[in-house]
């Protein structure tokens, strides 16, 4: 049991090694092998969930892995799981499993595609489990490589542009994070410098200053900004968001799902795991700014989403809008808001993944994504008549995304609003209208795509098949069950989140 | 009785034959044969010196090595020749000028 986290992280890599012996021509075997690997990873994470003790707020002691890695620099290979990372681990393993199923019709280089997908899974799981900043950084960077190739090779018509944009943006963030990491290493302790996140946490660096260009700057403010930008690019927070629509539109279905469902959460996870615990005073100092940025994300993302005619781009902007709620919840620094934010990370992962998977299903039939084509004619229309089963799943996904009570999104959004109200009343009042806009763009999209008479070239589309229904069902179940009864997810996170909030409140 | 000088003379003749073949002949196979001659000359020298000067077994061992190495060398050399012939359809040594920039 103590090696479970190792198994979870490295199993996809073992899967890649196993895949090497399968001949390139045997495509079916490659696909099934990838499915089996991700399925076993999912099962391991479920075992982890089963053995998780929700009363422990710290890292689960049963699962901690700590092995010296580069002993000269006191760098350890440290893995651990707590209530904040476990929901993300579950989400990651689930989405990768579904994504391998959704990648059945990849047109070219099947072996390389699945190998990269598995590498991506390993690195994302590593980011969520790493407790050494150096290890965290390594996984964070490794994640870039498969993403770059997955978008750049299997993407749409403008894929190189999108891949390079994604890479450069993320890399800029990584560099700032690297600077912050190294700075932390040097102040972390006399004689025993360390990258250990747990020992860095707790706000030890309040009174330090750092001299830059002849000025004494407060250490924690400066490097909080560095880490903030590093993570904010990933979220993405408003001024750093433009890579997202490009990357989403160009990426193949499964990669869009992973991008929206998991990778965006790495940014907010970074806040929760690294930026806030290490610089609590600075994060309280910047809480106002974070909240306002979150508000801008919500409103601006929703307004931009409403104008899109490419359905994938619309959902991409909706992701920006929804991640704004997470930012708001983080800025609240109350137990409701933080729990709401983590829950929103999970819920947005499931609902947006559903939407992207559904659009992928549609794209396999239509080979375009226009609600309204650039020449003004209707791209989709009357799909309700043409694809009844597909429509039902789409309705569930759409209403979950807009936060209809009874589906998952509502609880997290309500918790966030309750959490932020006392501290940011004005922002709450404004942000609530984001819900209105959110309903508007989704319903308008739905109306244009699904209602009315069937558009002529939509008449050949076939309804969802058994495989597609199979991989949609877990998500449908997740949004419905956690919408009515969110306690299973909230229970695992509440102790860890509560501890973080309590620590922040002492500053 | 034959003495050391006689052996060395024969060895010299063999050596010079080999040099001349290598320098003068344009056929790569012939050049390889020339190299074999030179190797044989060297082997003969070893044996002669061992017999008349050192009275030691070492000099007898060395020709055996030379024979083995020569055989291996001939194999590699002929393989190169065959590949060369397949590419150039000739075994004329002056056509092997790829090293020239």
């Amino acid at each position: 049991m103590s090696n479970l986290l190792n198994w979870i992280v490295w199993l996809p890599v073992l899967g890649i090694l196993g895949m090497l012996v399968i001949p390139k021509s045997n495509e079916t075997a490659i696909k099934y092998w990838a499915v089996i690997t991700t399925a076993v990873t999912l099962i391991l994470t479920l075992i982890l969930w089963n053995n998780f003790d929700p009363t422990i707020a710290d890292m689960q002691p049963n699962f901690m892995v700590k092995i010296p890695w580069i002993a000269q620099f006191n760098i350890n290979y440290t893995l651990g799981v707590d209530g904040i990372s476990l929901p993300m681990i579950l989400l990651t393993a689930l989405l990768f499993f579904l994504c391998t199923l959704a990648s059945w019709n990849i047109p070219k280089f099947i072996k390389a595609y699945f190998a990269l997908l598995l590498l991506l899974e390993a690195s994302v799981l590593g980011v969520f489990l790493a407790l050494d900043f150096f290890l965290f950084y390594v996984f964070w960077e490794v994640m870039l490589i498969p993403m770059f190739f997955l978008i750049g090779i299997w993407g749409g018509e403008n894929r190189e542009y999108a891949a390079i944009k994604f890479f450069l943006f993320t890399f800029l963030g990584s560099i700032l994070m690297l600077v912050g990491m190294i700075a932390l290493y040097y102040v972390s302790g006399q004689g025993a410098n360390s990258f250990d996140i747990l020992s860095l946490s707790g706000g030890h660096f309040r009174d330090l200053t750092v001299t830059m260009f002849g000025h004494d700057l407060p250490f924690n403010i400066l490097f909080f900004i560095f880490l903030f930008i590093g993570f904010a690019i990933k979220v993405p927070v408003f001024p750093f968001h433009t890579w997202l629509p490009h990357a989403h539109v160009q990426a193949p279905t499964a990669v869009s799902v992973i991008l929206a469902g998991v990778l965006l959460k790495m940014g907010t996870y970074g806040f929760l795991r690294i930026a806030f615990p290490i610089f609590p005073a600075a994060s309280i100092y910047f809480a106002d700014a974070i909240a306002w940025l979150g508000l801008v994300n919500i409103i601006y993302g929703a307004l931009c989403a409403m104008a899109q005619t490419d359905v994938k781009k619309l959902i991409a902007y909706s992701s920006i809008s929804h991640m704004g709620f997470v930012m708001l919840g983080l800025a609240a620094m109350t137990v409701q808001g933080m729990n709401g934010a983590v829950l929103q990370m999970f819920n947005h992962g499931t609902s947006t993944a559903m939407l992207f998977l559904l659009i992928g299903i549609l794209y396999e039939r239509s080979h375009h994504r226009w609600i309204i084509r650039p020449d003004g004619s209707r791209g989709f229309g009357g799909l309700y008549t043409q694809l009844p089963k597909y429509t039902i799943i789409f309705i569930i996904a759409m209403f979950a995304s807009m936060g209809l009570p009874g589906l998952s999104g509502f609880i997290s959004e309500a918790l966030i609003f309750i959490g932020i109200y006392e501290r940011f009343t004005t922002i709450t009042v404004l942000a609530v209208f984001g819900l209105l806009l959110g309903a508007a763009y989704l319903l308008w999209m739905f109306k244009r795509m699904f209602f009315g008479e069937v558009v002529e070239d939509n008449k050949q589309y076939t309804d969802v098949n058994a495989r597609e229904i199979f991989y949609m069902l877990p998500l449908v179940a997740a949004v419905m069950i956690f919408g009515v009864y969110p306690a299973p997810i909230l229970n695992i996170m509440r102790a860890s989140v509560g501890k973080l909030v309590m620590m922040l409140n002492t500053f | 009785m034959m003495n050391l000088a006689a052996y060395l003379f024969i060895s010299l003749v063999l050596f010079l034959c080999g040099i001349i073949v290598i320098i003068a002949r344009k056929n790569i196979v012939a050049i390889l044969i020339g190299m074999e001659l030179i190797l044989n000359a060297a082997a003969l020298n070893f044996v002669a010196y061992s017999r008349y000067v050192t009275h030691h077994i070492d000099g007898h061992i060395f020709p055996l090595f030379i024979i083995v190495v020569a055989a291996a060398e001939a194999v590699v050399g002929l393989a190169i020749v065959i590949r060369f012939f397949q590419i150039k359809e000739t075994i004329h040594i002056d056509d092997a000028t790829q090293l020239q920039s």
Partner: protein
Amino acid sequence: MEYTLTSIAPIVLLPFLAFILSALVVKKSDNLAVGIALSGIVGSAIFSSRVFYDFVFGVYSKGYYIHKVFNWFDLSYGDLVFKVDMGIYIDNMAAILLFMVTMVGSMIMIFSTYYMKGDKFGYGRFFVYMILFSTGMIGLTISDNLLSVFMFWELMGFCSYSLIGFYYQKESAAQACVKAFMTTRVGDVFFLLAIVAIWSVVGSVSFVDIYAALADEKFAGLAIFGIPLITFIAISIFMGTIGKSAQFPLQVWLPDAMQGPTPCSAMIHAATMVAAGVYLALRVYPILEAGHILIFVAYIGGITALGAATIALVQTDIKAVLAYSTISQLGYMVLGVGVGAYNAAFMHLIAHAVFKACLFLASGSIIHELHDHHTGGHVQEMPRMGGLRKKMPLTFIAMLLCTFAISGFPFFSGFVSKDRILGDAFVMATQHGSFIPVAILGYAAAFLTAFYMFRMMFLTFFGEPRDKELYDHTKQETLLWNRNMPLLFLSIFTLGVFYSGSFTGQGLVKVAGDRYEWFSTLVQKPHVENFKSYSKSEFNYEDSITRNFEKSHYDASHGMSADKAHHVHHIHSIGAVISIFIALGGFLLAFFMYFKKSINPWASKFAWYTKVLKNKYYFDDFYLGGLIQKGLLPMNRFFAWIDMGIYDRFFIDGWERVLAVCYSAAGWFDRIIVDTIFVDGIGAGTRLVNVILRTFQSGKIQFYFLVGFIGLAGYILTLL
């Protein structure tokens, strides 16, 4: 018998279970899904009739309530406490509403088996939505807190969206369902804001906690944006009512809601959705009162009542007339809330639900039979009807009774309830001058109501058939269990005796050994002082039966001096007489205009006003054409253009230009200075040497060998 959570939960769980099951089987068998849905609602009706009986005739009828709480989730850690409880709260008002919802819902769904049979858009699918809709309303009725009210509220929003968009191939249905959802969502957003604000003060949104907080004056002194917090909360929560109950200025969605099948209109307009808004306003009445916005509520109600009634005058679609009459009647209820006629507003809610459900079902009965053989569609335009009472006598009788009720004729339910609302408005007007316009609006709307309803009756059932072919094709009505039974059942309950029992002035129900008018006795304003320092015990699954209500001020002996009570009673009598005359006046005007001539003589005289009315006071044009088409969408396109066209293109991709300048400068330096002079300089020198050495590099192996041999020979020579 005591109620436990498990004995009371089936009221909402049964229909929910029926929804899940019917949704699962609807692909396989329509009839099975319909059967499950029907048994779900009927089962819930049976359970709730027990609750109803206990609360009206039995042990609970003295202002007791059932309150059961369970923990939904708990985020507490250490001394940071945050718990969310859900619970069931049933008092007399909830019990009555519950009974009405399940009964009317059952009737509507029974009627739907007639109306929707064989519908190509899905007979079973319709019932799946309907049962979910009922679940939402039932759950809302018995909720003990605003959060679960909001959840069921939105669930109904979703169901209304699905039902209005039921005919998904119709463009108008698509428009209407989005409009309905979005318009109500505007109100919902404010409602959510109110919930959040209440939570921040009270730490819970349970009704009893809110009442207790009001009694403890926890809101005192708090302000937001310069206005008292409690006023802000009251307005926000009332915005929810405005959205859901289609009050001015968010009334635009309700007329369009008739794009759905007619039984769903009955469900939305009568039993469930719009009633929820008024029910909410009644539940949070203490907040409205504490926020001092009752006059605002009254004005909204009055404006809505009159405005919608005027629009109804010019409608020719039978369902549109009914839709506007719904808005108008909802305006009455809200007006009733505003003038403090608490139980009268609730009584009107119940009475209206019954007669409006019946009216819609009756109109459905007409529409379903009027089949246009040219277009293949159903006819709902009144100009093509006329004389139908001979063809459909049973529908006619049901509809006539309901029309009497809605018009406020004596001995009918509408008279009992509306008279009290108007009477209270009248009393308020005599006491506060600012309420005089409210009373005038109310009476004017009452007059118009009688007029347009009888106009509809005359145009539909009387006179000569205007479309002879259509008339001849219509079948003679026969008694069908699922067509006429629900109509007749509902129309019986339009009689006033069921609501007041005041044929003799004595109530039906015996309370404390005395007979009272049961509505006025049982449904009373929550008196927050009784909840002072009340807190619900944690996780209690037990009954908490407490008497916590004051007597209504209708009961002349309570809460008022005998002198004042007499005065109020006196004014009420005057108000009642006025409203009788007004109803008769409306009837007579309609009689002379439409029965005698069956044309509209005023349409030409007030052409511009008719045009304004036909355009519904231009609200749709303003919202859709103005705010959305001219405001929101261009703004969206502007922002999207800023984002991709300006920000991304110049500020993000612009870095490429900056870098291009940098790297071309660096490239020039590298090429000219570093490369040409330093690197190539060395290179040129090397090349010179190279030329010399090159001559030796013949590439001929024998030449190399020869040179090597000569060199070796030379070396050996030097050794010699």
